[in-house]
């Protein structure tokens, strides 16, 4: 890859005109969240580096993943690569799993350039700010969080890197939200059953592929670091944490180390969440921060979450789609592509050939029984293999011309649901909706109809027209 960490990726973005730098001082509120909201609304949707924030020492970067252009550059593709092509490139890289990391000595790890172990004050290092108006406080919304299973502390495979929201509650105290179905909840449960502290590392400002993998629903014993290596085509560099056996990215900007207090729950939230609404306040675990290590002049990377689409929607788009695709493809080889990028897979569209009548419905039910689809996915649309599930115009064509609501639409009541979806009631329970928009095949049947074709030479003319546009018209 052409970049090894966040800093080097920002250089790539700048060279590709996908980075804006703000040199004038801004206020933490409301400027930073307003910038985070505005950037993904732009056509180019660049990352934004804010160099000076009133009252703080360090810079902030927002919207690093917040466009298809930035997403393509993360995958080393030209920035105008279509989404479906990015999906298949990601699939190709995915299959290179695992590429194991390399460990570098602490003294050579950039993230250890500065070590703070007394007088911890998060505000000295992090330019913290309120993300949405009624958030309970200042949040870390883009942290790669590392824990191990205390019952198997030497197990690298069970080590988890996930992205969970973190509320700052003091100079050296934060709160975390581990949902019961998240891998970290397994580690916490094992620690709390023994009334033990759970060591934790909160890594900020990472190689974009690492943040991407921390947001990806992979299997419990699969390693996010090994996947990141696969996506990069070379090992990521790790080093050891100061206070525990945890493996942390050697090139992160900032790492907060500490432990989850066992058997303690304290009020946390509300927080503006990815479905575009606030979660309620709940009782959640707290973390004591005991050490901070960081690079010189660290860059604080955070994520604005707003009404979709904002950066988070790009961060959990194709990496939600690929695991579902892999799980479906194993048993249903006719599946062509999966687009599960609507609100972290609450909505999903699958394109597939139909081997026999009713096949689309079977594919939908399989999706709803995958580990991620089971709790997150509420609405599934199945389309024919020649429909691009990433092109909503084509999907709407399939819905309007292929669906017979009397036989192609069904519901599954009282199934597992995603608690943060405000329509999940009680929280954690959904009724699933399946719409089979595939063309009927035997023994099912529909009226005979033949599809329109594409004029000969359409592809040639598409290229001619594209080139004319690039050249500024046929002068």
């Amino acid at each position, binding site marked *: 890859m052409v970049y090894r960490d966040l800093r080097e990726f920002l250089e790539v973005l700048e060279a590709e005109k996908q980075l804006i730098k703000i040199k004038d001082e801004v206020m933490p509120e409301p400027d930073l969240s307003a910038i985070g909201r505005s950037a993904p609304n732009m056509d180019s949707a660049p990352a934004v580096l804010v160099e000076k924030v009133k009252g703080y020492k360090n810079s902030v970067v927002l919207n690093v993943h917040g466009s298809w252009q930035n997403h393509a550059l993360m995958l080393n593709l030209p920035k105008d690569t279509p989404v479906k092509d990015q999906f298949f490139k990601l699939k190709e890289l995915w299959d290179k799993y695992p590429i194991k990391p390399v460990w570098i000595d602490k003294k050579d790890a950039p993230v250890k350039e500065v070590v703070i172990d007394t007088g911890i*004050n998060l505000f000295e290092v992090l330019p913290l700010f309120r993300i949405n108006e009624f958030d309970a406080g*200042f949040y870390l919304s883009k942290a790669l969080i590392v824990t191990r299973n205390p019952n198997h502390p030497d197990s690298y495979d069970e080590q988890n890197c996930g992205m969970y929201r973190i*509320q700052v509650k003091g100079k050296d105290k934060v709160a975390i939200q581990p949902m019961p179905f998240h891998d970290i909840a397994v580690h916490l449960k094992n620690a709390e059953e023994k009334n033990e502290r759970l060591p934790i590392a909160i890594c900020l400002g990472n190689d974009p592929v690492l943040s991407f993998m921390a947001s990806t629903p992979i299997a419990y014993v699969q390693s996010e670091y090994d996947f990141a290596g696969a996506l990069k085509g070379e090992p990521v560099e790790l080093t050891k944490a100061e206070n525990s056996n945890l493996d942390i990215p050697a090139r992160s900007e900032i790492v907060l180390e500490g432990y989850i207090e066992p058997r303690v729950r304290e009020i946390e939230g509300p927080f503006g969440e990815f479905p575009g609404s606030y979660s309620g306040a709940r009782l959640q675990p707290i973390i004591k921060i005991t050490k901070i290590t960081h690079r010189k002049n660290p860059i604080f990377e955070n994520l604005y979450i707003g009404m979709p689409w904002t950066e988070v929607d790009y961060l959990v788009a194709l990496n939600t789609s690929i695991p579902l695709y892999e799980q479906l493809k194993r048993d249903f080889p006719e599946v062509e592509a999966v687009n599960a990028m609507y609100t972290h897979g609450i909505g999903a569209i699958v394109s597939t050939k139909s081997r026999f009548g009713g096949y689309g419905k079977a594919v939908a039910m399989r999706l709803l029984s995958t580990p991620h689809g089971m709790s997150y996915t509420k609405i599934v649309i199945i389309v024919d293999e020649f429909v691009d599930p990433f092109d909503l115009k084509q999907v709407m064509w399939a819905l309007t011309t292929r669906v017979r609501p009397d036989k192609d639409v069904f519901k599954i009541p009282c199934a597992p649901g995603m608690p943060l979806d405000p329509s999940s009631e009680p929280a954690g329970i959904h009724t699933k909706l399946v719409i089979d928009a595939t063309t009927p095949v035997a023994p099912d049947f529909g009226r005979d109809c033949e599809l329109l074709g594409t004029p000969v030479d359409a592809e040639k003319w598409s290229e001619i027209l594209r080139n004319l546009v690039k050249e500024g018209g046929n002068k």
Partner: protein
Amino acid sequence: MKCPRCDSELVSVMVKSPVGDAWEVYLCDTCKFSWRSTEGDNITDPEQYDKRFKLNPAEFNTFDQIPPIPKLLKK
């Protein structure tokens, strides 16, 4: 000073700005709400804080635990 969100008077200064005398951040010890002195009245003024987001400390023990605390293993 009162907490804008739950009206508790158990409020402390969490931190002062690391650079200059730019702002202070306050923390409510009752509902753990935090806010900055430079934020608008919609955040800092208990009278103007949106009523839909006000919290009543008497209800805190009815909130869900995420995740639930497991039983201790017998030694």
